């Protein structure tokens, strides 16, 4: 299996922190190859994507907590049709929706590292791979995922 990064070809839209500052801790964390998820300071509930209020207790003291960068595949899709010119040389590729049990089961979106035609299984354990884009005007790091080696 190819573990080549980046998963998608050059020229895809990059990521940058929201100008409001809402998700800066997440993007700073990925630059250090760490996974930080929003967590309510009042009720302890996890929340993703970032929001200004806790949807459970309506507290505004939203904090951030580093979590183990592992998860399991909740769902997935294999993209074949290039809706962006940069995708043309990179299809098919796989998108995974990854559930983080250690963070209240929040879900994140990323790409599955490896061949686009690989077998993908719901429930499979995955670990994060931090994909640096140092040459971008505003350098950023994406969170990609690769299957965890089976352990028994």
């Amino acid at each position, binding site marked *: 299996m190819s573990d080549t990064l980046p998963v*998608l070809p050059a020229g*895809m*839209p*990059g*990521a*940058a*922190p*929201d*100008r*409001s500052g*809402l*998700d800066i801790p997440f*993007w700073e964390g990925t630059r250090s190859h760490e996974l930080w998820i929003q967590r309510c300071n009042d009720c302890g509930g996890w929340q*993703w*994507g*970032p*929001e200004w209020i806790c*949807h459970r207790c309506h507290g505004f003291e939203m904090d951030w907590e580093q979590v183990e960068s592992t998860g399991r595949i*909740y*769902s*997935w*899709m*294999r*993209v*074949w*049709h290039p*809706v*962006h010119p940069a*995708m043309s040389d990179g299809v*098919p*590729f796989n*998108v995974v*929706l990854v559930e983080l049990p250690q963070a209240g089961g*929040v*879900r*994140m*979106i*990323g*790409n599955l590292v490896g061949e686009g035609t690989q077998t993908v299984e*719901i429930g499979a354990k995955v670990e994060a791979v931090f994909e640096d884009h140092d040459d*971008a*005007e*505003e350098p*950023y790091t*994406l969170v990609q995922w690769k299957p965890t080696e089976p352990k028994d």
Partner: protein
Amino acid sequence: MANDRTLRGKVAVVGVGETTYYKRGQAEDQEFVLVLKAILAACEDAGISPKQLDGFASFSNDRNEPPRLAAALDTAELRFSNMQWGGGGGGGSGAVANASAAIASGIADYVVVYRGLAQGQFGRFGQGPRRPAVRGEPAHTIPYGVMSPAQIYAMRATRLFHDHPGVSEASQKAVALASYHHAQSNPRAVMHGRPLSGEDYDESRWIVEPWRLFDCCQENDGAAAMVLAPGDQAKDFPHPPAYVLAAMSGSPRRSQAKVHNQPDYVTSSFKELAPRLFDMAQVTPDDVDVIQSYENFTGGVVMALIEHGFATYDNADEILTYENLIAPDGKLPLNTSGGNLAECYMHGLELQLEAVRQIQGRSTAQVADANVSFVNSGPMVTPVSSAIFGSENTL
């Protein structure tokens, strides 16, 4: 007082109209002109002067605003100027609900529900952004190649098939074939004369697994409109009225939670709405004679049909077969004009027009004695909406 809080029978659709339906980018008229032509056609069908219109309702941020339309048409007074927020094509039945609520409550008398699209003159739905970097919620999806509607919703279908062995790609295929079949008898349909065989479907390219080309809606230019009037006047118009038995919009709890974090992921968003809809209409799914179900993607149709009670998670593949879905003899005639897949992607408003035509006996794939006509808008988006129309026999 509780009994008064219903739309049932208080409003009727009395006229429908549309422009020629075009492939994307092929309409020569300006989008505003397309909308005007559709409204004029609907008024002519209803036998009223456009100057009698006193309300306008649309959805999905239609660019053609009621104040401009009312001035261009010289309507006597603009009493209802309404936009259904959110939901993309999920607002179609919602616009009907809003228009109906205005009429039932005495706010307006003759409300036109309309939608115009000229994707050649404005942006396309099916293309990603061309910016170097994205921020906010899109930064957590778009750099990973999740940009187009198909990419946003396909993972629901993947998980649907995983969770429910009684639902598979076979149901999706049946939906696509039924829509194309019905388009062959509909001269308005963009895919009229372009039949689709099972082999064509199987050999079509993947867009996003589990969706092939023919699982995805078209992109089109055109406009459609329908005129609604008070139910107690409905028999004064040239065609048989299609009474609104129920119409409403809604969405489940935290349906638009960011980055695919809605509590219930595997849903077309109708689980809560459907019981309310049938309760207002005072009919059951078994009473429905013909179904128009919005196809953004066939997987969404399958989920919507299940959530409205036309099939179950266990028997969907047995119920949602091509034979069952085609008029006039199928048990669940579906998308009898060709719908978004094969008539025209008029953001689902063409499905509303077809639901009305079935009640009036004017469909090109007519179901015999159609008295109860169901339509749902925009599965999976937030909010979604549904409507049920009935003939005079249902009142």
